[in-house]
């Protein structure tokens, strides 16, 4: 069984089957494998001295790779000898060589299994809202559940199903209305610039300025480009360029002119440059529209409406009629 705990300061992986665990504290990586027999149950495992870990890791990986090289050489040598024995009709040696070959191949398979990286953990121990907050903090713009899930999968522990986020916004709104500001942040809506109603399917963070949460006609494109820049910046961080992260970056790059020169390789620097170039075109008009809408919203809407959007006109009218 494998578990992964992710916190803002780092991640911890537990592999109960192998009896090993890895703690990654942002830049520091501390690994102990395998655990001493008593280590797991009776408390703290012995921490290796500084520097010793890297030596051990080097030896472990190095040993694995070099022993595999040796094995491959042995296997090809044995095959050559088998071929010669067949040619010279030496049946006694042939049987012996075949046994040796089978053993060597078995060892090679086992060594390969050890080299293969453990399958990525599939769950995070953090509550869902924390996970969404993490992903939105990376993006810095309002995003749809699908993108949030993709960012979380790319840069944090484990997959997140976009469908889980459906009720999140409503729960947050209920929580805010019953006890305003009881939490340090709320996951709230983005607001349309023209009618100040909530935008369908976008999530934002309450601590962001209103201007960032207002969506005008150019804002979807501006936010897309901003998200692309943020993802590219994140990919450049040491250890962040995993396959999911690169795949996400490729998705962004495909829709930005000049962000993708090579069909296979995607360069974060190039994505950033191209996205900034297009952003310069749209940024001013978008900013003017957002600023005006944000000023209007802060004048016309109450605190909770500023976070979760005004009721659509039809609903407001019905509520008025009921009164």
């Amino acid at each position: 069984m494998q578990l992964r705990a992710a916190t803002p300061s780092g991640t911890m992986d537990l592999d109960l089957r192998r009896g090993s665990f890895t703690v990654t504290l942002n830049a520091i990586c501390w690994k102990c494998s395998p655990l001493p027999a008593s280590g797991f149950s009776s408390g703290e495992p012995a921490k290796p001295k500084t520097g010793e870990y890297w030596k051990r890791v080097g030896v472990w990986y190095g040993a694995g790779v070099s022993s595999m090289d040796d094995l491959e050489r042995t296997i090809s040598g044995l095959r050559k000898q088998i071929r010669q024995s067949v040619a010279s009709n030496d049946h006694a040696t042939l049987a012996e060589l075949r046994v040796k070959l089978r053993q060597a191949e078995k060892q090679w398979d086992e060594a390969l299994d050890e080299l293969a990286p453990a399958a990525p953990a599939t769950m995070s121990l953090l509550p869902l809202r924390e996970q969404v907050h993490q992903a939105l903090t990376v993006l810095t713009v309002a995003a749809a559940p699908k993108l949030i899930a993709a960012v979380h999968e790319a840069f944090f522990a484990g997959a997140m199903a976009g469908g889980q986020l459906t009720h999140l916004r409503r729960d947050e709104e209920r929580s805010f209305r019953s006890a305003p500001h009881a939490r340090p942040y709320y996951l709230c809506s983005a607001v349309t610039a023209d009618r100040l109603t909530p935008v369908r399917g976008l999530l934002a963070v309450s601590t962001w300025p209103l201007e960032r949460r207002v969506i005008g006609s150019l804002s979807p494109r501006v936010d897309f480009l901003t998200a692309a820049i943020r993802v590219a910046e994140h990919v450049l961080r040491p250890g962040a360029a995993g396959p999911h992260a690169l795949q996400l970056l490729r998705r962004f790059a495909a829709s930005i002119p000049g962000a993708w020169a090579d069909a296979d390789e995607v360069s974060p620097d190039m994505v950033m440059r191209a996205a900034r170039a297009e952003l310069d075109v749209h940024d001013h008009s978008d900013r003017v529209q957002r600023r005006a809408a944000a000023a209007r919203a802060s004048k016309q809407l109450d605190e909770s409406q500023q976070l979760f959007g005004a009721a659509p006109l039809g609903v407001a009218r019905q509520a008025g009629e009921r009164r």
Partner: protein
Amino acid sequence: MENTEQRLSRLRGGGDPEAHNARTIAAMTRNPGCVRRAIMDAAGVDKPAVAAAVGHPTSIGRLSDFAVSRGISFETRVKSEGCAELLRLLREQLGLPVPQAHYEDLGSTGKGETVSGRYLRSKAMLDTAEQGTGTLFDHPLLRLSISGVWAYLEPDLVAFQLGEKFYVIEIKSFPVIDGVADASKVAASVTQSAVYVLALQSLLSEAGRDPGLVSHEVILVCPKDFSNQATATLVDVRKPLAALRRQLSRMDNIAALLHLLPANVTFDPELPAMELAQALTQASARYSPECLAACEMGSFCRAEAKGSTAILGRTVREDLGGVDAVSTALELATGRLQPTKDLLQAAHVLRLAQRMRTEALAR
């Protein structure tokens, strides 16, 4: 004296007329010569109910769940992140300038919003759209008058302004493989897009703008080859547009067709099956095998046309001009019936076919 509106209401057996959508409006152009269809569509008769009542239940227009979910997922993909993928296509393939990246969601905001309210919002937004301030309009609500009743159309597409023109974009999930797509599916999509073009033209003229602002070319967005990547193609819709206009004007003149029906005829699905079938035969149909895929009454009309040459398709019917029944055709072919002067050519073709058949069987 009963007016046309009252007569149409009585034809459908009272109640509200069936609402039309882009698919049903597009289907009207498939067989413009059919009086039965024209009258039933104009009256808004519940055709599936009528077909079921006369013993020919149908499943036309009901899409498979898989097809629907595939269509929705492709559309969502193309439109995600402010239509990022669509913008890429339009920039690469149609030269959309980079500053034009505006996106307006005119889709339903859910509870409490009326259809007419949405229409007015779409109208206001498209009316004020000038170059540089509006590019993509997601799910605008348009409307078209079908024999005096408004049919509201929600294109699963975006109308957008490129240069001085509005283009209708149709997102479809059938693939374009090596630049070629299924011809029948393209034809259906093009006719459907023509309905949207017509509705968009009518919206602009209602708003006092030139309907010529709407391009007669639509942009068809489909998956490319076997991938999920999209590709865009410009398709000319002038021909289906003309057919549609003709058919709609014909429906506006429905009074002329109604005179062909006896005054007491109604197509009320509640009527006894025999009586209903009798009433249906009062309106002449023009059956062809294509009707089976486009009209709910297709199966009934086929049963009715049994024994006639129409059942063999338009080409056969035209080749055998003047020979209406299959039995007559057989008699002419075998020489049991001597052709009259006007049937000489058809008889010659038939005898030739018969001779070739005999020769082929003799081998």
